[in-house]
C-alpha cells in the first residue's frame, strides 16, 4: 500500500443520511473472489435506471462530478453489513477520501485498512461542503500530516485521526507485518491462557 500524505481532488456531494453498504455495493456483486473490479458496481441501484442506462439525476453521474476523488456524505455513512467490498468499490471507482459527520464503525475501519481516508467533520462544516460541491465542480485539499481539509476560497477545517492510523497511512504500512513482530507476546499469551477443554 502506498503512503497517504496529501490529496487534492474534486469533491462530490452525496447529501443523504444512513447510506448503507447494501447501497454502496449491492449483494449481487459480492461473489467475486478478488478485491478489484468492484468500482463499476458502486451505488448500482442509484447509478443505473431499470433499463441499464445511467441515471442522469444521480449525483455521481452529473457531468461536473466526473473524476471526483473525494466523497462528501451525510450522517452515519456506511452503516449495515461489514462487507469490505464497500470501500473496495469506492476506491476502485476513484475515491481516496470520504468526508461525513459520522460513520458506521466497521466501515470506518475497513476504509483505513485499505488506505482510503475517512474524515469526520462537524455537521456544519459538512453542510458547507455539501452546499459548495452541489451542482458545480469543487476542489478540496486534504493534508493528513496537518489534519486539515481546505479549499482555495478560504475554507479550512481541521480533523483528527488517531496517531496510530496517521502513522500507518502516511507510511503505507502492512498491519499484519507489524503484528507478526509481536509473535513472542502472542505466544506468551497463548501459553498463559489455555482454555478449559
Amino acid at each position: 500500500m502506498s503512503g497517504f500524505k496529501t490529496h487534492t481532488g474534486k469533491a462530490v456531494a452525496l447529501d443523504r443520511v444512513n447510506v448503507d453498504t447494501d447501497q454502496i455495493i449491492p449483494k449481487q456483486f459480492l461473489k467475486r473472489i478478488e478485491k478489484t473490479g468492484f468500482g463499476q458496481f458502486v451505488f448500482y441501484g442509484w447509478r443505473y435506471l431499470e433499463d441499464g442506462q445511467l441515471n442522469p439525476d444521480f449525483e455521481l453521474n452529473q457531468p461536473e462530478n466526473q473524476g471526483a476523488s473525494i466523497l462528501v456524505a451525510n450522517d452515519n455513512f456506511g452503516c449495515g453489513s461489514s462487507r469490505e467490498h464497500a470501500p473496495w468499490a469506492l476506491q476502485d471507482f476513484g475515491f481516496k477520501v470520504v468526508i461525513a459527520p459520522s460513520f458506521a464503525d466497521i466501515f470506518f475501519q475497513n476504509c483505513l485498512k485499505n488506505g482510503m481516508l475517512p474524515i469526520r467533520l462537524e455537521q456544519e462544516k459538512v453542510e458547507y461542503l455539501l452546499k459548495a460541491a452541489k451542482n458545480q465542480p469543487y476542489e478540496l485539499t486534504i493534508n493528513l500530516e496537518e489534519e486539515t481539509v481546505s479549499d482555495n476560497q478560504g475554507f479550512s477545517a481541521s480533523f483528527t485521526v488517531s496517531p496510530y492510523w496517521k502513522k500507518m497511512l502516511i507510511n503505507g504500512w502492512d498491519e499484519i507485518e507489524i503484528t507478526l513482530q509481536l509473535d513472542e507476546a502472542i505466544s506468551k499469551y497463548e501459553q498463559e491462557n489455555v482454555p478449559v477443554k
Partner: protein
Amino acid sequence: MGKSIIDKVWDKHIVHQEEGKPDLLYIDLHLVHEVTSPQAFSGLRMKNRKVRRPENTFATMDHNIPTVNRTVIDDEVAKNQMTTLEKNCIEFGVPLAGIDSPDQGIVHVIGPELGLTQPGKTIVCGDSHTSTHGAFGAIAFGIGTSEVEHVLATQTLWQSKPKTMKLDFKGKLSEGVSAKDVILYVIAKHGIGFGTGHIIEYCGEAIRGMSMDERMTICNMSIEGGARAGLVSPDETTFAYLKGRKYAPKNFDQAVEAWKELASDEDAVYDAVIEIDATDIEPMVSWGTNPSMTAKVSDSIPTLADCATETDKRALESALQYMGLKEGQRIEDIQIQHVFIGSCTNSRIEDLRAAAEVAKGKKVHPSVRALVVPGSQQIKIQAEQEGLDKIFINAGFEWRDSGCSMCLSMNNDVVPAGEHCASTSNRNFEGRQGAGARTHLVSPAMAANAALYGKFVDVRKSEILN
C-alpha cells in the same frame, strides 16, 4: 468500582498495550464463510503466511447456498466462491462444515449450536451479525476482510476499546411480545446510530427471563442500532444450553465455575445507560428502508408533519416512495405477497415453533408465497422430528434447506420488484431482498400470521392465544 462483563472479557484478552496504539486483542474463535474470506486467504498465500490457529477457526458456507436442490448451483460465480472456500480450508487446515455436512448452517446459528460459542470468548467473523454470539456473554463483532486476514495470520486484532452501554429493561414483557419485537422497538425508539462506538449489555428482568434463542435474536440486531457488539451476562440458562454440545468443554463444571465470574458486578459503571420500559412493547412491523423505520402493529406510518428536520423529511419521502406506501397509512392496511421465515435473526427451533403454532391447521392466503428456511441442517432435522415441517407444508408454506436465503437474496430466493415481504430477517434496506423488493421486518409469529391474512394482523388478536 465494579467491572462490567465487557471490561472483564476485554481486559482478559489484551496481548499487548502501548501508548498511542489500539489494544492488541486475542481472538478465541474466528468464524469464516464463503463471501468475505476469499480475498483474505489470497492475501495469506501471496505473503506465504499460514493460519496461526486453525483449531480456533471454523468455516461454513451459508450466504450463497441454494435452499432447494442444494447440490445444483446454477450461478457459476457463486459456485466458484464456494469451491474456493473448500480449497482454502483444505490448504490452510481450517475445519469446514461444507454443503454436505450435517453441521452446515448459517454461521451465527451453528456457532452456538455446536458449542463453539462460549461465555467469555472473543469471537469475530466477516459478517456484521456476529453480534449474535454476545447472547452467551462473549464479545463478538463483525470485521472486514482485511481484518479476517489479520486474524487468520495472527489470531489477534488491533482494536480500540469501544465505550460501554447498558440497556436496562424495566418491567415484564406482555404476552405475545417476542424478542424480535423488543429489539425492533429499541431501534425504532433510539435510531440506527444510537449504539455507534459502543458495546451494549442487555440487562433487566425481561432479558433474564429469555431463552438463549431469544437472547440471540436481541444481540443479533445490535448492529442495526449501530453497536459493534451486544451481549448478555451468562447465567444458568446459558450453561444449560451449552451442556453436552459437540465442542462445549468436556470438563464442563470447571468451565462453568470460570464462566460464573464473568457476569457484570452489581456496581459496574457504563459510559451510557438507557432504560427501556418493557411493558410498552407490542408486536412491531417495519415500514421503511432502515430498521428504525418501524412502528407498533396497532400504529400508523408517520406523516411528513411529524418530521423534526428537513433531512428526516427527505428520508421519509424517499422511504415511502421506495416502499410504495403513504404517510399516515395504518400498518394493518399494508398488503403483503411474500413471507420469509429464516435468517440468523429468527431461524432457530423456537422461532420455527412460534411460527408453526400460528400456522397450525390454517392455510396460507392465496396471494402469498411463504418460505420457511431453518437456520441449520440440525434445526431442520429437529423441526422435522417435532412435525413442524408437516404443519408448514400442510398450511402451504415451502419447507427448505438451511442458509441465509431471502435475508439478502444472494441465492435464488428473491422477492420481485415492487412486492412486499413480511420477513423475520434483520435489514429492510433498499434492494436487500431483491432489486425493488419491499421488506417488512417482523417476528416469526407475526410473519406466519401475515402469511395467513395477506396483511399484518396482531398475533395477540388471533385465536391462537385465546
